[in-house]
């Protein structure tokens, strides 16, 4: 058990990040904090991919002339996460843009206050 925690602790980080992110998204009534929660949630997934790609004594996958070497680390998860990070940044930008629009229209970024304002609309 101890050994498992010592070697696979990054997966605990993944679970913690996913849980914290989801909790903040659900529990916070501030839109900006919800977006931060979303980012934390996505980061959990990024850490999952990167942890999965880890290989003890793995080398970077650059094959020398004449071949040989290794074991090599699979570069695929890193590339995927680079893409996913870019996607995450664009989503955050759009989300914050929408929050600005909501603030301009209603003067609040609080979900509960907004509900009251919309109900009186």
């Amino acid at each position, binding site marked *: 058990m101890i050994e498992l925690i010592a070697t696979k602790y990054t997966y605990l980080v993944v679970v913690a990040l996913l849980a914290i992110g989801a909790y903040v998204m659900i529990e916070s009534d501030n839109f900006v904090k919800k977006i931060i929660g979303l980012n934390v949630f996505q980061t959990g997934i990024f850490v999952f991919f990167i942890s999965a790609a880890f290989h003890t004594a793995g080398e970077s996958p650059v094959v020398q002339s004449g071949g040989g070497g290794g074991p090599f680390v699979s570069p695929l998860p890193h590339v995927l996460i680079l893409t996913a990070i870019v996607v995450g940044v664009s989503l955050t930008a759009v989300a914050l843009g929408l929050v600005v*629009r909501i603030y301009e*229209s209603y003067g609040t970024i609080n979900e509960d206050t907004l509900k009251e304002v919309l109900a009186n609309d």
Partner: protein
Amino acid sequence: MTETLVASLVAIPLLGALLVVASGLVSERGPPVVAAAVLAVQTALAGWVGSRAIVDGSLSNEVGGFVAPYGIELVVDGLSAVVVALVAAVSLAVLAYAVRDDPGGTAFYTEYLLLVTGLSGMCVTADVFNLYVFLEISGLATYALVASAGTGRSAVAALKYLLFGTVAASLYLLGVGYALVATGTLNMAHLAVELARVGYDSPLVLASFGFIVVGLATKTALFPLHTWQPDAYDDSPDSVSALIAALVSTVAAYALLRILYTVYTPAFFEAVPVARDALVAFACVSIVVGSVLAVAQSEVKRMLAYSSVSQYGLVVVGLAIGTRAAVFGAIVHLVGHAIMKGGLFVAAGTIDDLTGATTVDEYAGLADRFPVVGGASAVLMLAMVGVPPAVGFAGKWYIALGAVRAGTWPVAVVVFASTLLTLAYFAILVERMFVAPASASVQATTDGGTDAEGDRPSRPAPALVALIVGAAVVALVLGVAVTDLQTALEPTLDTLLS
């Protein structure tokens, strides 16, 4: 030659989106014209590539010359041919509405083409991570389009949609991660082989299935994961409602079909029957609750939105049952629903522009005032209910037939009950339009000039009437032509279900 054209199904709308930006710098009139031209080319291309794929068998293209399964592969088979052609044709048709209704500007048309890029990409890709990227591209474009109404409400709806959509896509990505850890590959066809080798009862494979299905079911808007959808359809501009109601969830459901049958294959369902049962139960609940919520709505656009929850439940039931007839029925209903719901949203938007009527009660007496629009919408509604020979009947018939053949009688009962429930909410609307005395807002347009806003057109634009009538005609013709579609999809179904 045709193989290289597969990649241009994604490249053309993407380059088109840039062209729109460039043309917007030159002239204000440029963007709609460029967007129309690009979508016309895309429709012609999708038709050509699609017909090749149906006649000659599936076409594949390895992007950048990287050999599959290491590189990204794009594949057009009979099924993706149908959906990609649907995406191109419907987006071209709805553009005719968007140029009238448009919230305007270069940004709108750029987002419109980016949405077509994402949806076309989801149709043709044969790589699960690439599917995630296209899912997010179409998602981002949709959030921006929903917010393009410019109102505070649309921004709230778009933000809600964004939070749901992003979590859904993230769950899908997590599922892809589990599958990658289990197999080391992302290519759909290769995954099918590798997943079978790993064993379908492996926890990694089961978890990946769960995450992917929940992610895509949220994007498809199945109950109880649908809560983003009514606001997004209701608060977006009318032309955007028509576009996203017709296409976005449709393509998500297509992605679910693709993942279920190309990646996990029917053998997974054989090995893990509980996965099938859970999916069937999930979809059946969605059918019933979606319909009940639709009956309870007073706003027409919200009613149409909840109706979609129920109709996608039907599609997913067809997929989950997995007999040949049921899967074919799901495909027919997917295509048919896109055309009927797109037409109905265009009709709802047109009626709103003409009379300001948005609720069921305000629709009273509408058919007397606008017989063509009213008549065509009634045809579309009855088609959705499943009155033969319309496409709605064909889809439900095949799904029910598949359920009966699979021996799942309760599902067959739910499918038939769903027809009654669909009738329950559309019958009220048809009764209002044709039988009830005219409402105040409809009356106002009849008297002419008494309308407070004073800028309403007195008659619907011919292009919009053509669009609504066209949708009704296509819904009828498709219903008649469904046996031809079956013949055309025969080889694809063989591959999917083997």
